[in-house]
């Protein structure tokens, strides 16, 4: 059972995000973490390997400290890692990023691809389904349970308040949602092994990708600028004891804002 996990480095949820003066970019505090949903993907991959044997490979596209995501993966128990850190890969939209990642996945034989439902920086939620389409494979989105048995997988995923149980033949792609599992804390011995490990890389040409298919050039969507979220005017504190305040609040909601 060869399992590939796509894991992305995103800013720490508490990192400070500010819009650069001219709106052309974001100033983000340099505190990073592995995308929350991708940790669930890695945990599920390790559990599948523990049950069915095989190998787990973590793939990350990113520069700078992105290797930390791969080292965390190895520390948690992944067998292999692959880094796509050629700058030509960067700043791609969902399409260009998914194309590059699908080529990286196709480098070696695989049975299962696990990735997060969404990366909490761009909040796109596109890469999983796109990679599945590029690889012409079925996928199940936002899974909260996964069972693997003789060449087939049965996945549960909440769909609009209901629970869908879907069966797919392998190979297939799955994107993870909260509730699937709780990621393990890497063992110290794992962290040490990961620190020493040489991380293999793949270049665009090794993946058969030309410059026009990569990053901004390969993107279909252009980010023009960033805008501050709609600022809320300061809170209007309603005074008075419980009964008075409640009555005033209801008056405002019915008469002023007319939301009830």
């Amino acid at each position, binding site marked *: 059972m060869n399992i590939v996990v796509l894991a992305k480095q995103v800013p720490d*949820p*508490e990192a400070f*995000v500010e819009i650069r003066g001219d709106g052309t970019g*974001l100033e983000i505090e340099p505190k990073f973490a592995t995308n929350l949903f991708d940790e669930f993907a890695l945990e599920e991959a390790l559990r599948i390997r523990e049950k069915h044997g095989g190998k787990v490979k973590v793939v990350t596209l990113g520069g700078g400290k992105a290797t930390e995501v791969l080292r965390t993966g190895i520390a948690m128990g992944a067998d292999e890692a692959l880094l796509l850190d050629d700058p030509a890969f960067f700043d791609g*939209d*969902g*399409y260009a990023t*998914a194309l590059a990642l699908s080529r990286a996945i196709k480098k070696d034989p695989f049975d299962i691809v696990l990735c997060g439902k969404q990366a909490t*920086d761009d*909040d*796109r*939620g*596109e890469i999983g*389904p*796109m990679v*599945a*389409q*590029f690889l012409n*494979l*079925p996928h*199940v*989105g*936002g899974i909260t349970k996964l069972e693997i048995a003789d060449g087939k997988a*049965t996945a549960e995923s*909440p*769909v*609009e*308040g209901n*629970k*869908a*149980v879907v*069966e*797919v033949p392998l190979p*297939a792609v799955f994107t993870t949602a909260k*509730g699937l599992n709780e990621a393990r804390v890497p063992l110290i011995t794992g962290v040490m092994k990961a620190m020493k490990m040489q991380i293999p890389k793949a270049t665009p040409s090794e993946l058969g990708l030309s410059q026009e298919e990569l990053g901004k050039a390969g*993107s279909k*969507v*252009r*980010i*023009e600028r*960033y*805008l*501050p*979220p709609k600022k*809320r*005017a300061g*809170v*209007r*504190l*309603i005074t008075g*004891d419980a*009964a008075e*305040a*409640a*009555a005033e609040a*209801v008056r405002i909601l*019915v008469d002023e*804002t007319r*939301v*009830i």
Partner: protein
Amino acid sequence: MERLLIFVETKGDRPRKVSMELLSEGQKLRTQGYAVEALVMGKASEALKQEVLPCVDRLVSLTDAVLQSYTAEGYALALANHVRSINPKLILAGATQIGRDFLPRVAVMLGAGIASDATEIRWKEDPVKIIRPVHGGRALSQVSFLNYPAIITTRPNSFPLEAQAGTPGEYVEKDAAMSVEDVKAKVVKVEEVTKGKVDVTEADVIVTGGRGMKGPENFVMLEELAALLGGVVGATRSVVDAKWRDQQDQVGKSGKTVSPKLYIAVGLSGAIHHIMGMDTSKVIVAINKDEKANIFNYADYGIVGDLFEVVPAMTQDIKKRLGK
């Protein structure tokens, strides 16, 4: 004449609320030189036809056994084939769990751009500008497409519902002519988990309780208030972790993102992880005994007081005002 295609998602036999928002958007565009079409998977019910046809020039329903239940491959292939046949400029769909699951596949099939979870579309600009939240809503990004066709999925409750009667369009049933091999996934079963309960992402009014509720039994007062307002009860992670409420109701970073008309935050501190999931709500009312609670930095209206007094008082007042 630019063409627009709206994918209508159904709940039971009626269109989902987010689909109606898009149809209302589409209706406005019919008067500005767009030909607006809609597509629904499976045979359209009479109720659906009545709500959709006034807003569009044409409603196509794809009837095919494979499309009876939702699979990403099935819906994607059917939609992509239909798009190739009518060649619209833009495809619109709700950024629901289904919408966000299969539209990206359509984008790859068509080599098209996709802007997911949009909260605003500026139609008049050329190219069309789409605004979508990033970093949990701490910033908005403005994007546009390099070529057409392109796809936009929109966050529920982001577009107004202005129903005007337009000249009703034609209804066409088409066989998607899909073979079983096209879809490798097989839906074993779909269980009704929440009996007809509206999902927090779709509710107009959300009354969320935090650890201040002290125990699961106290949520009854929030259920009563929410029911009165036609809303649902949300939860913070603390109360979900404490098993007082269900994970499905959790609002926030590792829960759901909501933007209802009215969000009443009861006995919750307003940690950034929670705020990320609800700060696009139109009106936020916070009830907290601690005036320094962070939620007050994000609320429009705040009551500093004991929720066990304020909430029952509010419920009584609303009953009186709404004559219930």
